């Protein structure tokens, strides 16, 4: 006769064993289904690609039939990804339209799903593959269903792509809460005209967004925004100054080179580095005496870029030779020697 504790232990073990078997079966079955799903999805992706490139004759009905299959959204994402990367030029415009006609109602339906992952997938497809999308249902979703931060950000990006005024107002209130990189992602989605207006009203934007705007000017090398960047070279805001000189560096031109001098004399190595990098593209003799002390910086990147900048000038070479021969700073000497050797000079 078994005692109660042993019975309890036995029951517990039996429950664990059942749980384990169920767990294992669940894993096996989901793996089998998943493998089958992947195979089918891959076939569907191929069919969508073939239809999009006009390899097979497709009508709106063709896409509707495909949409009735499971994993249509995932397959479409794969297809569009493939298609955007590799065969963009060969696509049949009519087929793309058919796909959109079929896909749009599905995406709107998916947005109503109770599963966050389904909603995020739908928003990702819209954000990545739609140039135009009706934003009203997205705002409705944002205002009524209390979506998570990832969904909100995706909606904001889509709205910006569609030049939505409400999205721009939202950024004015919220961009300080976003990281620099997120703000940059938002700027990238501005339409050209809106962006121009944003530059005009630069001072009205929150600081975090101003930095992203400047960084975008640099990334796109927008020479028409040079006056804005030059105006900000003398601001008290360090991060703003850094983004401003980055613009000058990327654009490769400035009308006020003397305003860059203070960067070389700064105690912030980032400012020194940007000065040395900018001096490589904007070659001004007046930079040479400022570059020479930078060879003694404790930061390798500053020393390296100062050396690279100096080597571009004849008198810069003289400075490098002087440093190589006379300075007591081993790191400065080392850097000067390295650059002179690259120039082909043999040093003892």
């Amino acid at each position, binding site marked *: 006769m078994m005692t109660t504790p*042993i019975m309890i*232990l*036995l029951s*517990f*073990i039996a429950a*664990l*064993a059942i*749980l*384990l078997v169920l*767990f*294992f079966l*669940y*894993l*096996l079955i*989901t*793996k*089998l289904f*998943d*493998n089958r799903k992947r195979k089918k999805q891959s076939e569907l992706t191929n069919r969508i690609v073939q239809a999009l490139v006009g390899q097979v004759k497709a009508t709106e009905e063709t896409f509707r039939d495909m949409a009735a299959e499971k994993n249509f*959204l*995932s397959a479409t*994402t794969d297809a569009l*990804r493939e298609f955007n990367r590799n065969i963009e030029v060969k696509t049949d415009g009519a087929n793309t339209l058919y796909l959109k006609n079929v896909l749009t109602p599905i995406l709107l339906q998916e947005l109503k799903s109770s*599963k*966050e*992952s*389904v909603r*995020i*997938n739908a928003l*990702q*497809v819209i954000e*990545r593959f739609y140039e135009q999308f009706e934003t009203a249902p997205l705002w409705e979703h944002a205002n009524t269903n209390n979506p998570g931060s990832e969904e909100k950000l995706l909606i904001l990006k889509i709205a910006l792509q569609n030049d939505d005024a409400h999205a721009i107002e939202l950024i004015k209130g919220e961009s300080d809460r976003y*990281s*620099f*990189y*997120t703000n*940059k*992602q938002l700027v*990238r989605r501005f339409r050209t005209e809106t962006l121009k207006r944003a530059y005009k009203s630069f001072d009205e934007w929150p600081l975090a967004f101003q930095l992203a705007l400047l*960084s975008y000017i*640099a*990334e796109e090398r927008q020479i028409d925004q040079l006056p804005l960047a030059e105006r900000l070279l003398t601001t008290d805001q360090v991060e703003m100054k850094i983004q401003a000189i980055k613009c000058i560096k*990327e654009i490769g031109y400035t009308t006020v080179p003397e305003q860059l001098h203070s960067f070389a004399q700064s105690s912030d190595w980032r400012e020194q580095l940007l000065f040395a990098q900018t001096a490589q593209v904007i070659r001004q003799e007046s930079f040479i005496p400022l570059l020479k002390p930078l060879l003694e910086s*404790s930061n*390798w*990147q500053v020393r*390296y870029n100062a050396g690279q900048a100096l080597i571009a000038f004849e008198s810069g070479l003289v400075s490098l030779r002087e440093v190589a021969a006379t300075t007591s700073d*081993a*790191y400065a*000497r*080392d850097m000067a*020697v*390295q650059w002179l*050797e690259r120039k082909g000079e043999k040093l003892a």
Partner: protein
Amino acid sequence: MTTFIGILSTVFTWIGWFIFAYMVIVVLLYFIVFILSFLELKKSKDVIPSLKEEEIFGSIDTKPVSILVPAYNEELGVVPSVKALLSMEYPEFEIIVINDGSKDKTLEKMIEQFQMKRTPQVIRSVIQTKEVKAVYQSTVHSNLYLIDKENGGKADALNTGINLSHYPYVCSIDGDSVLERNAFLKVMKPIIDSDGDVIAVGGSVRIANGCKIERGELVEVGLSRHPVVIMQVIEYLRAFLIGRIGLSRLNILLIVSGAFGVFHKESVLKVGGYRTDTVGEDMELVVRLHRLIKDEGKDQRIVYVPDPVCWTEAPESLKVLRRQRSRWHRGLFETLRIHKGMLFNPKYKNVGMLSMPYFLFVELLGVVVEVVGYALIVLGLLFSFIDPLVSTLLLCMSILLGSLLSMAAVLLEEWSLKKYPKVSDLVKLFFYALFETFWYRPIMTFYRFTGLIQVFKKNHSWGEMTRKGVSS
């Protein structure tokens, strides 16, 4: 005699109850951490992999990274590893291979393969290291450097690499590891997204044995046929997918694997780089970084990201595995000993109150409890102090709980990375997990226990430098 046996029996009973209670607590803790990981992965389970990496790749906002590859007697693996690293998808990076006094042809192979030329670079020794004999730079890949230095161990090699590194982030990678091509885009994302508030990121480490690797690139994932390796696959899944995700969620992650981790260089320099007098240099550094964060009152984080993956070769022989595990356990002991002041110290918040006690009582001392448990079972059965039926039932329970946990890790793998494509792989993993308690677990417990014994044996030479090879 009867009284003595009576006392012994009572002692046995009490120890037995203690071990039982300990086991229950540990199992509960594991399941709590599992639930945290489960919730974290469930959120992203069905999300179509995003296209974010493409945007990062094209951005001027990525942070350049110095990849440090310490190499000690790696003549066979270092060249393919470096070739694979050179083809990484990342806008700006440099590779610094540190030849830590190899006795084989590591140096010659590197010089020959990458046409490396000696450069007269002076290294700024922010961290003191063993003597650097020479610095080389590749004439074909200007972002590839090679440092030849006196042997000083992995930590010393990494410190030398940090001294030479030119970029604000450093990444440590084992010389015999293989990274997926977009690994850096993924591992750097939390840093870029957080405006630098994330000061260290660890990626996943998986076992490469059984996988098909061509020219330093993983082309097909597979399971090894070696039982010892399969058991390590299960262990790694458990450690990375249950442990690290859960701990990272609470910002109490104490381990960023030395095989693949990215660190903010300035923070590493602030804490003095890797310690060379411990064999657990990777964990010790992370604990010091946590200490720095709390001491400076900053809102910084150390995170783990399950995807990217670094594939590494696991030991196939028990002899090598024994060395590795006893070293890891010694490293754990040393780290906890060095930072004992953080233990239960409210100043260090969750790290001091949760993470450090967890590592002390569960990871470090769990081994001792297990050894006592095994001894108790053997002695108890021998002297009839314990009921064979009860002990069998407890054994069954332990097997089932262990297997459940392993299966839970496999489930999380299926939800996140899905790296093992075959159904047969899952079946293999399941059955091996079932038998873990019979052979693998006791062996590992023994190996880890020997690590503890080594600590006490070397008690007199505690302050001395512990030498070890790199990527051994």
